[in-house]
């Protein structure tokens, strides 16, 4: 039984040792190391992606995002819990913590991301109010038809003096072009995020859930793709630019890339469950026969304690 310990720590010959001195030396060594790295390499800081930037650099992408939000086809409108009940919660057999927790942060994208900010904006620019009323008094079937008509001709649309101009057709666009133009102006002014987030409490906008969910799908995804940071590019462990990222999450990120995780509709729950099981095994390794004997079998310990084993050998030889 190799794992059995016959004598304890204090039964061995001792050498003097200064913990405090060692502590200060280590503090100095790490301090110098960190100082050098910081001075030589600095740190990355790619500015936050803003609605202003998307509306200016990629107006069509921004307009498409707004259209998806209006017609409820965006990723959040169809997400399910914790945002709404319109999507499938992730499940693992009968287990679905997402469904059990239910809607915790209610979000309907059309209202939260587009209409509410424009209504707040209408206080300063009342001319938008009839447009918003025309939209909200229409049936949802009518709203969808308007959005679909705009989407059909979006590729042929132009920006004239910063305003969206759709080609003249027989199709009825309803109030959608005016809504989109007001939304574009709001975004270009740089205050869209604040009109989305900062209205429900006396707090400044420290909770940015809603504005982050506006750009999370296509715009942020496209941006991340160009920085080699999409999910399929192991984006979770990567840092922007040439910097090391969170390599300690390699196992978590790797699971997303391989089957059965990569082609599961409940990939997140499956990955998290696997991580939980693997972590529990590692945490309780001391109690798992077989696994806890691996270090003895690997024999790396002989290298670590080689001086001691040599000492023991000499000691025994001298005694015999």
């Amino acid at each position, binding site marked *: 039984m190799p794992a059995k310990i016959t004598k304890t720590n204090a039964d061995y010959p001792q050498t003097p040792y200064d913990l405090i001195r060692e502590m200060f030396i280590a503090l100095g060594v790490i301090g110098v190391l960190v100082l050098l790295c910081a001075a030589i390499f600095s740190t990355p800081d790619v500015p936050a992606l803003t609605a202003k930037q*998307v509306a200016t*650099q990629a107006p069509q*992408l921004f307009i498409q995002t707004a259209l998806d939000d209006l017609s409820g086809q965006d990723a959040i409108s169809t997400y399910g819990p914790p945002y709404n009940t319109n999507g499938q919660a992730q499940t693992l057999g009968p287990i679905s913590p997402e469904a059990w927790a239910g809607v915790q942060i209610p979000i309907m994208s059309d209202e939260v991301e587009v209409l509410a900010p424009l209504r707040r904006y209408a206080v300063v620019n009342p001319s938008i109010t009839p447009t918003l009323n025309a939209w909200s008094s229409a049936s949802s079937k009518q709203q969808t038809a308007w959005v679909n008509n705009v989407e059909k001709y979006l590729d042929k649309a132009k920006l004239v003096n910063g305003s969206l101009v759709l080609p003249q057709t027989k199709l009825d666009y309803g109030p959608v072009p005016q809504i989109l133009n007001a939304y574009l102006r709001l975004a270009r002014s740089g205050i869209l995020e604040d009109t989305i987030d900062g209205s429900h409490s006396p707090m400044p906008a420290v909770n940015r859930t809603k504005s982050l969910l506006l750009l999370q799908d296509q715009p942020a995804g496209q*941006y991340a793709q160009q920085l*080699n940071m999409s999910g399929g590019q192991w984006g979770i462990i990567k*840092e*922007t630019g040439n910097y*090391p990222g969170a*390599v300690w999450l390699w196992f978590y990120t790797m699971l997303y*890339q391989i089957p059965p995780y990569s082609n599961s509709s409940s990939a997140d729950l499956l990955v998290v469950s696997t991580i939980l099981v693997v972590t529990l095994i590692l945490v309780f390794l001391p109690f798992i026969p077989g696994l806890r004997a691996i270090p003895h079998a690997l024999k790396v310990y002989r290298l670590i304690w080689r001086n001691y084993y040599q000492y023991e050998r000499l000691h025994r030889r001298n005694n015999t």
Partner: protein
Amino acid sequence: MNTQLQPPIQPGWAWQYSWLDLSLADIIVVLLMVFVFIIALVLPFPGGHDR
């Protein structure tokens, strides 16, 4: 109108093989970890009983 978003920086080089996609910086860190560990194992500790 259909233009792409432009990040202000270029991504670093990454090694891509099948589903692997590891940035050079991360590879360096991992190799450094293995290297430091082996060196720590092999180098004789000063004040030891080697001779």
